[in-house]
């Protein structure tokens, strides 16, 4: 057996690789609610905080805890709590506090706007390994253009200050849109000022539920995406490296990530899916048992047809982030090419292979 790496990120990747060999569902995501107090146009999941029909579908705290115990008994060690906005749930700590006693490595995703001093204090009693807060701008004007809620910027900053005060570990990230891309550097500076990590995501998809999405009014053009990622040293290095290697991807394989191999998601109404961006196969662990649901998920992932021929034979394939979830959200199928991603892949190939004096 090879020695384990000592760098934390590499160690986690190696542990996940070993977990995949034995089909261990080591990484879970509990989407505690699909409701959010913000109204971001680009969100792939958002429902209003006051959406009573959504609220009625949400699992109870007791049901989440039952799922957590069942999942842990089957090998779950990493657990992400996300939404929607998790702190909309008045019973959040009825779920969270027992989880902190289970030996799980916990992460929370939040927009931070509902984190009060009292919530930060309670988190500090048994903090998650990481809290990730999404920042939508560096000024109130931009932040609130994205979130659609007056006063939300100040509330987010107050939430961040409360976490700092109580020494709750957290990092910042942003969802980059046309409206806030001009403040990316300023957001990075905010993170530096607070002494925390910062990351950005700019690959925005349509809605998971197939309802009307406004993401095309928000997301960057393919050219803007490639220009932006080329300014990020780590991303650029990865793509330059990929320009020189034969694709390691199995061309007939559709899922090339950990979804359904070591990872699963349970949505707010208790359906298990491979990732947050897919609403299939929606197996129900509370009804059929966690083990049977996990096996059903693996069958779904293993039985998904390969990508369409267009994708399998495409010469930009190694630059393309298409996956079944992207296909589902953008085309309604699990296999079809996604034009937005085709454009990004083509521009990446031109950019990175051009940098290296290769084709085109």
């Amino acid at each position, binding site marked *: 057996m090879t020695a*384990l790496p000592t760098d*934390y990120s590499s*160690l986690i990747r190696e*542990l*996940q*690789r*070993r*977990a*995949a*060999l*034995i089909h*261990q569902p*080591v990484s879970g995501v509990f989407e505690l609610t699909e409701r959010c107090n913000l109204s971001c146009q680009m969100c792939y999941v958002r429902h209003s905080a006051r959406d009573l029909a959504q609220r009625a579908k949400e699992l109870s705290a007791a049901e989440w805890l039952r799922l957590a115990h069942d999942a842990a008994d089957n*090998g779950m*060690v990493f657990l992400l709590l996300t939404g929607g906005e998790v702190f909309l749930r008045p019973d959040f700590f009825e779920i969270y506090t027992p989880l*902190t*006693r*289970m*030996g*799980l*490595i916990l992460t929370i995703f939040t927009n931070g706007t509902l984190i009060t001093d009292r919530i930060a204090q309670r988190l*500090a*009693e*048994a*903090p*998650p*390994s990481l809290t990730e807060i999404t920042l939508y701008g560096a000024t109130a004007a931009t932040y609130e253009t994205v979130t659609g809620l007056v006063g939300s910027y100040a509330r987010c900053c107050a939430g961040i200050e409360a976490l700092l005060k109580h*020494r*709750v*570990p957290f990092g910042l990230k942003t969802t980059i849109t046309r409206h806030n891309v001009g403040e990316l550097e300023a957001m990075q500076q905010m993170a530096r000022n607070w002494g925390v990590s910062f990351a950005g995501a700019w690959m925005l998809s349509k809605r998971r539920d197939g309802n009307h999405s406004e993401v095309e009014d928000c997301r960057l053009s393919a050219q803007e995406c490639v220009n932006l990622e080329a300014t990020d040293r780590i991303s650029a290095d990865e793509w330059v490296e990929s320009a020189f290697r034969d694709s390691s991807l199995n061309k007939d394989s559709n899922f090339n990530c950990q979804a359904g191999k070591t990872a699963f998601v349970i949505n707010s109404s208790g359906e298990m899916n491979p990732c947050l961006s897919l609403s299939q196969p929606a197996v129900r662990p509370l009804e059929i048992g966690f083990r049977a649901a996990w096996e059903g998920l693996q069958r779904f992932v293993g039985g998904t047809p390969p990508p369409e021929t267009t994708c399998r034979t495409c010469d930009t394939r190694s630059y393309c982030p298409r996956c079944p979830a992207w296909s589902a959200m953008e085309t309604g199928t699990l296999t079809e090419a996604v034009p937005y991603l085709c454009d990004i892949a083509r521009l990446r190939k031109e950019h990175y292979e051009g940098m290296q004096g290769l084709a085109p």
Partner: protein
Amino acid sequence: MQNVGGESLLVPIGARVVDVNGIIVLNDTARCVWELLAQERSVDELAAAVAEKFDVDFANARVDVQTFLDEIAHLQALKS
């Protein structure tokens, strides 16, 4: 103690999450000692068990056991 892909891990809980800031991977000896620590035992008892299980001499086993105990004491991983 958790198991991921056949590897044994210690995961900090409660307020220790901030101070430990990571996970602890146990080798076979450390896992054996950790399991034995479910009950109160002396260092010599632990060393004797390790020596027998891994077919090593008592003196070397005792050094390994003491090293592990010092490390987890530093991390405050055990309640007295």
